[in-house]
Every structure is written in C-alpha cells, then in structure tokens.
C-alpha cells in the first residue's frame, strides 16, 4: 500500500482531468439529499454529504436493466444487449457502500457470472472517501470495519484538512494513480498520522453497536421464535429497506413489449412484497409478513454468511434511517444476540 497526498488546490483540477477519460460518478446534491450522478465538472460535486440516499450499488447493478431486445412474431428476432465497456470511476464512495460490492460479488461473479455486472465491476475504479462524520444510524464498526477503511476500495481519500491523504489499495488503484501521478506527492509520516487521528475521531462518533458475535448460531435456533412476528406486526411491507440497502440484490425478470417490439428487463425486487415469492400456481411459500420480515434478517445474518462467509450487512444505516415505521436492525439483532434460549 502506498500513501500519497493531494492538495486541496489541485483537487478540482484532478477531478476535471479524470472526467476527460472516465465516466465519473460522484455525490451531488439534488432536492435536498445526496445521490451519485455522472458529473461533467468539479463544481457539480458536493462532498458535504453524509452518504447518498440511494446506495451506489445502483451504478453497477442498475435498478432497471435491459437484458435483450426482441421483435415478436414469425419473423421475430432477439438482439442481445450490447455490453459497453465504459471506463468508470466512482468517486467518494463510502467504505460501507464499497463493502456492499464485496458482498454482491459472490452473487454475480460466483458460479454463474453475470456479464453485465462483471463488465461494470471490471471497468470501475472505486475511489473511497473516508467518513469523518458518521451519524446516529451508522454502525460499520460492528463488523470490524471502519469509516476510514480502505479494504474494499481501490483508492481511499481521507480529508486531513489542508490536504487529502490518498491510500492506494489495489493494483487497479495503482494504475489509476499512475495515470494522474503529477497531482500526487508522497505522504509524510505526519500526514499518515493525521489520517489515523481522523479515523479514531470518526470511530468515536459511532455510538451504536450491533452485537454480531455468535449471532448466526443463535439464529439457527430461533426460526420459530415469536420475535419475528413482533416486528412483522409493525412492518408495513414496503421496499424501502431493500431498495436502499447496499447489499440487497434480488431481482425480477419481465418481458415488456408492445405489438411490434419488446425487451426482457431485469428490475430490483424486494422480499417484503407478497408477489416476490408467489408461485405461478398461486401458492406462496412466504404467505405472511412474518415470513417475509424473518427472511430478510435471516438472509443477511444467517443464510448469506453460511453461503458466502460474510454477513450481508455493512452497517450503512439506511434501512434504519428511512424505515417509515422504525424497524431498527440494530435493536432487533441485539435482542436476538442477548436472547436466552
């Protein structure tokens, strides 16, 4: 790992230089909240954000994706979706959201490789920005991560007041930095120390903790526990938690056509919707909200770690912040953790 610095005066210039050769996604503020958008100039970027409302997973795994185009009828045809290899950089992604991709990878790059996700992933450089001001719903530290972790990004920027400390984490990151080497200079030990101090400060701001130890084993014994019903009563069954989650990845496939043309599209789906598990026969293996609510927590804290070795939650806090009925994953999982069985 290499540590560099870039001065804040040079910062607009490097961003505008990157834009010339990359499709650059960065946080912008619209309608009073932050979102990742392609920017054409440094001035569009807004780094005063805590985190984007929608997770950047939407950049690599689009909410609506056309898989192929078709023409129906005897002379019908199918035209596969062209895979565009666009050089992309995602700037100022938070460490928690970058970890989201680590969790999506086994799904889309595992036994069956999804060519669209793969192309997006391969062509993207993840440039993280450390979180100096986590909020009341952040809990990445519960998973041994940190708001200034470079573990899941190619390059990590940290605001150390007059400069940014730039940590190069991967080969991909190294290649990227080399292309723009004139903007960077080596970091001094003091500057590295300044980052560590920022990181410590940020960690202190995280007040809530989800007790993950032993939770998987605990859940093995709790499938029929009344706690799921208790939370399901409160749940209204919307898709906010799943759609705003950086790790939820379930999708639906639909043929959408008019008389003379159509497309097969893949859209995000949410396990909170009754239609999600509905069989063609009309049978639904998860008929009640209790089954669906339970499934979401089991998927994140039990099934996924069993299958892919990692809890499918990064502690970004969006599901807590935006749940319309205050279903709080920290509160719930801590109750599970502390449950005497």
């Amino acid at each position: 790992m290499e540590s560099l610095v870039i001065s804040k005066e040079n910062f607009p210039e490097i961003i505008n230089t990157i834009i010339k050769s990359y499709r650059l996604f960065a946080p912008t503020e619209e309608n009073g909240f932050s979102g990742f958008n392609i920017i054409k100039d440094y001035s569009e970027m807004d780094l005063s954000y805590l985190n984007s409302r929608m997770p950047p997973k939407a950049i690599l795994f689009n909410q609506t994706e056309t898989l192929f185009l078709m023409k129906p009828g005897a002379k019908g045809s199918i035209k596969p979706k062209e895979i565009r290899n666009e050089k992309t950089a995602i700037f100022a992604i938070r460490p928690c959201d970058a970890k989201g991709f680590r969790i999506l990878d086994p799904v889309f790059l595992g036994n069956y490789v999804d060519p669209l996700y793969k192309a997006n992933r391969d062509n993207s450089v993840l440039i993280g920005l450390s979180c100096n001001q986590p909020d009341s719903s952040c809990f990445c530290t519960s998973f041994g991560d940190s708001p200034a972790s470079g573990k899941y990004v190619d390059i990590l920027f940290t605001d150390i007041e007059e400069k940014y400390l730039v940590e190069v984490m991967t080969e991909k990151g190294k290649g990227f930095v080399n292309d723009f080497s004139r903007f960077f200079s080596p970091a001094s030990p003091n500057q590295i120390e300044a980052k560590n101090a920022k990181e410590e400060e940020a960690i202190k701001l995280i007040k809530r903790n989800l007790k993950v130890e032993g939770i998987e084993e605990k859940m093995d014994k709790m499938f029929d526990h009344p706690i799921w019903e208790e939370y399901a009563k409160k749940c209204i069954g919307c898709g906010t938690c799943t759609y705003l989650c950086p790790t939820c990845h379930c999708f639906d496939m639909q043929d959408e056509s008019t008389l003379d043309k159509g497309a097969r599209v893949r859209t995000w789906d949410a396990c909170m919707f009754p239609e999600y598990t509905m069989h063609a026969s009309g049978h639904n293996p998860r008929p009640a909200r209790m089954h669906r609510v339970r499934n979401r927590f089991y998927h994140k804290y039990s099934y996924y770690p069993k299958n892919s070795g990692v809890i499918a939650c990064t502690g970004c806090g969006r599901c807590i912040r935006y749940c319309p009925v205050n279903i709080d994953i920290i509160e719930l999982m801590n109750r599970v953790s502390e449950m005497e069985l």
Partner: protein
Amino acid sequence: MVDQKMLVEVAKETLAREDVKYIIGYKKGSYGFQTSAAFAYTPKDVEEFIFTPLCNKNLAKYPLKEEKLPLKRGEEEDKRKIGLVVKGCDSRAIVQIIQENGMKREDVVLIGIPCPGVINQKEIEKRFPNQSEITDINEINDEYVFTVEGKEHKIPKQELLAEVCKTCEYPNPVLYDVMIGEEVEVNPKAEYEGIKDLEEAPLENRWEYWEEQFQRCIRCYACREACPLCYCSTCMADLLEPQWIRRSVNLSENTAWNIMRAFHLAGRCISCGACENACPMDIPLMELNKKLGKEVKEMFEYTPGLDIDAKPLLGSFNPDDPEEFIK
C-alpha cells in the same frame, strides 16, 4: 399536551374489555426522535404507551394490515375488536374505510386524542442528524422543548410542525369511543395554501416539476403501504395480467404509478401525510393529493372521512347532476 397517565389508564380499561383483543398505540422508538407503533396485549404492554408531538405515524393502517392466516383444525377465528389510538386524521381514515365497507364500526374501539399537531420527522432529523439517544419532546407555549447532548432546545412550533398539520381542519377525532382530554382549537388557516404556488405556475412548469419529482421515484411503494386508504387486497400496480404498470423503473412508468395512485385517492385522501413521510425519495406527494382533494371539495362539496353513514364520493350518484354527459 395529552395526559399520558389518562391515556394509559383508558387503554388499560379498554384492554380489559372482553371484546378487545389488543390495542395499537404509540411507544418510544429505538433511537433519536423516532416513535413506534406498539401492539399491547397485556396491561404491562399498555404502560409503554405515549403520546408526544413525535407520534406522527398513522396507526389506522394497522387494523387492515392484520393478517388472517389459515385456521388450524379446531381453531376458531378471533373476532374480537382491535383497540386503536387515533388522532384527528387517523379517525378520519377509519371513518372513510368504514364508509367504503373496508371494515365495520364494531371492528374497532377508538381511543381518541385531540391532536395539537405533530412534528415533521424529516425536518427534525435533518436538524439534529447525530441524535442517537431516545429523545422526549414537550410542547410548551407554542414551542417544542427538548434536550440534545445536554443542551436544551426551544424551537417555535411552526418551524417543526408537519405541513399537513399546519392546515389541518380536523385535529379532533371525528369518531371515537373514548376521548382523552379536551378538544383542541381548530387552526383557521386555509387548507389549500400549500399548493397555491403550484396551481398558479404555467402548465409546462408544472409538468416539468412533476417530471423531476417522479424521475427519482424508486417504486418501493412505501407511499402505498403507509397510506391507510391504500388497502386493496391486490393493488393494480402488482397485477401481472393485465400489467397496467410495468416493473421498469423509469419516468414513464413512475409517472403512471404516481398519477394512478393520486387518482385512486381523490375524494378518499384524509390528508394525514403518511405517504409523504414514508417516501424515502422525498417526493411531495401531498401536493398531488391536496390538489385532487381541492377539486373534489369544490366540484362535489364533499369532504372524505367525516361521516360513517355518508356515501363515498365515487360510489354516489346524483340524478340532478348538472353535467350534461351523465344524462
């Protein structure tokens, strides 16, 4: 301020009734400024009940959300009533649902709370984003008083009051079995002030405005699920045969969804603002609902959710209708 002791007492008495299975009220939330729905089955559960300016969710959603699972052999359906704590708007939702035959009056026992207005959740969380400690808020002399990190804040009520409350005409429950405390004064402010600017804007600008709003809809259906009047057993947005609205999330389908929902609420929306509060993308859905509500009021002299014996607007017909096409 609502007398919390009295609320708990009344709720306990209600729960003790043989014909009541449980009561839905509010309790403290899990962090910061949140409150949560509470489902009380025992007197001990009832002791958690609160009513504060943060009780801004519409609990009228829950009786119809109750799931009736297939009965096991020998099991009998529990037909007892559900107790429900209602503010003015929540009670109007219940009235409207009863009017539409969505439930029967005898299905619910209503504990009415004269509502002095509730806080805009998004606004207070924006102002104090780091508040993880569970915070009590009191309303004292038109100010909200609370403590954040050891510092007492006094914020004028109007700054934090939810938009719908600023123009609420029915803060007192219109239907109840027991009322907690005295009725509150009705706000004299005109109900449709909030949409005046939008109404006066030229057509193209309005269309542009709504395109911008619908563009960011993610179709999570939080608006529908939070709305007490969205209780169709199958929403037309979920139908596959025919598929009225495609699953693709784009401006066209999002517009179809949002306009469809607004139309389905015309003459039914009781202005609680639950949809807008729930929307994770901050789409000003109440502007749409208010506009249609205004049309309904002006054209048909109809206000939803006031009288359980009235006919729902779209289920009524007037032989003397002045419109030519209807004859």
